[in-house]
């Protein structure tokens, strides 16, 4: 059974004239790594807010259609209940950390749940280790770099052991190098812990290689839902101005020149591999 299923989902913010998205149909299976992209203002964030009940509980407005997340209808369960199934990492690392030490921040959700103290300690240490920030546990979050802060944010939702983690442009405040290492952490959560990941991201160059599926939205609608190697070849992707990864562009350029790589590359490594393959078969 799908871990997230939305059918004919339409949402309008309070006082808004038109819906932020309309008639969205979506099924996401457990363990998928979904890359959600599309131009700014197309409704990505709004859709994500439906997954953990921020919509409708926090934002109000009118939600029509049906959505089921981890077996629950978000509109019928409090946000804190949904939070135990769906972790949410926000864009701005600064405004999602409250405490004065990293470990206290990671403990925040577990403290709210009222878990026993030794259980909290165990889970906090685990989450800090998985995200590679155990050494920072006594530091103040505001002293850390953006990349480290975003790791703290990831650790703090991870500590709640959710089945799904939603990340809304988690790298947009970061330099490319920290962005890369954050995406690697997310990839590891998906691969090693089988956590379903929904990643909203514009940096397709860095993120495409980890995705098992790419969803493109435009003007409140899903216009493309494909596996990555196919998605970036679609005309529609280019039409809405989603910058396709450079290696895919390279693939297309080579194809125009009559050189066919064996598969659409999603990272420079893959591209290099395929090109070497072609060169060797030429020689041979």
């Amino acid at each position: 059974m799908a871990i997230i299923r939305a059918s004919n989902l339409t949402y309008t913010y309070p006082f808004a004239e038109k819906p932020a998205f309309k008639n969205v149909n979506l099924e996401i299976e457990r363990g998928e790594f979904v890359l959600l992209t599309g131009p700014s203002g197309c409704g990505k964030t709004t859709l994500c807010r439906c997954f953990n009940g921020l919509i409708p509980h926090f934002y109000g407005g009118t939600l029509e259609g049906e959505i089921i997340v981890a077996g629950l209808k978000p509109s019928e369960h409090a946000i804190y209940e949904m939070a135990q199934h769906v972790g949410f990492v926000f864009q701005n690392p600064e405004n999602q950390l409250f405490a004065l030490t990293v470990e206290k921040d990671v403990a925040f959700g577990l403290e709210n749940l009222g878990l026993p103290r030794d259980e909290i300690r165990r889970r906090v240490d685990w989450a800090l280790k998985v995200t590679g920030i155990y050494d920072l546990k006594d530091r103040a979050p505001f002293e850390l770099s953006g990349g480290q802060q975003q790791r703290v944010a990831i650790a703090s939702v991870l500590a709640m052991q959710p089945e799904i983690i939603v990340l809304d442009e988690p790298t947009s405040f970061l330099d490319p190098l920290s962005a890369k290492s954050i995406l690697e952490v997310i990839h590891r959560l998906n691969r090693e812990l089988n956590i379903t990941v929904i990643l909203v991201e514009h940096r397709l160059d860095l993120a495409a290689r980890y995705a098992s599926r790419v969803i493109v939205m435009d003007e409140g609608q899903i216009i493309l839902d494909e596996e990555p190697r196919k998605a970036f070849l679609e005309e529609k992707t280019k039409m809405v101005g989603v910058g396709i990864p450079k290696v895919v562009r390279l693939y297309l350029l080579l194809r125009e020149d009559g050189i066919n790589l064996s598969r659409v590359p999603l990272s420079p490594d893959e591209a290099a591999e395929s090109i070497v393959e072609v060169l060797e078969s030429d020689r041979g």
Partner: protein
Amino acid sequence: MSMLDGLRLLDGLRFRNISSPIHKIDPRAKFVYVCALFFVAILFNQIIPLLILFLSQVPLVIIARVKKEWLRLIRGSIFFAALIFAMNVISLYFYGGYPSLASIIEHSLAMTLRFIVLVESFSIFFLTTSPDIFGLSLEQMGIPYEFCFAFTTAIRFVPVLAEETQTIMDAQRARGLELESGGFIKRIRNYIPILIPLIVNAIRRSLELAEAMESRAWGASKKRTNLYALKMGGKDYCFIIISIIIILISIYVWLFIKIPSITQIMQL
């Protein structure tokens, strides 16, 4: 004093993660100690006991390894100290039945010193107590968690706000805003282009914070756990006993020993 100086002063109150014997004392015990100092400072209005009180805190500051921050706070309070001194001199000159100018100045100095002692003990407390731990001790004293959380979050965002204010001021200056020009009203009006973005940002920030809190199960359980638990130990009880002894000694001195004023000593 500009808004930024105010924030800097607050930033001076910012806890720095140092470890010292004083940092390790339970905040509740330290709180009793600060109360004792407050009590003694209010009890006496002569220079000599206030000066002794002031100086007796210096070793504590050195043990706590917060000398630099402490000095900055004392320096930061000089503006208010001068104000208090001036007000005292003026009001005593016109209304008090003081025999001489020297005794007026002495009394005003004592009042100023009292203020500085209050600032001093207050800062020793805050410089050596992590706000997290302070919030926790409030929580353990039965104060509602929402309040404690608001307190620690406010402290956590002081440096962020200070930085943001600086950024906005720089941006507005770059666009030609002059802060220190014109008369009094004009000067206040100068700050509007800084206040508006600051407030708008603060509102946006607090909405984002609320969203993030909700997403991390805020309010899930009536019985919230805290990662840390405070326990009073032998050292903490010692500290409390010392505080009580300080109070008893000063009551004794106040009742039975006549403290000479500096003016009197000089006349001898």
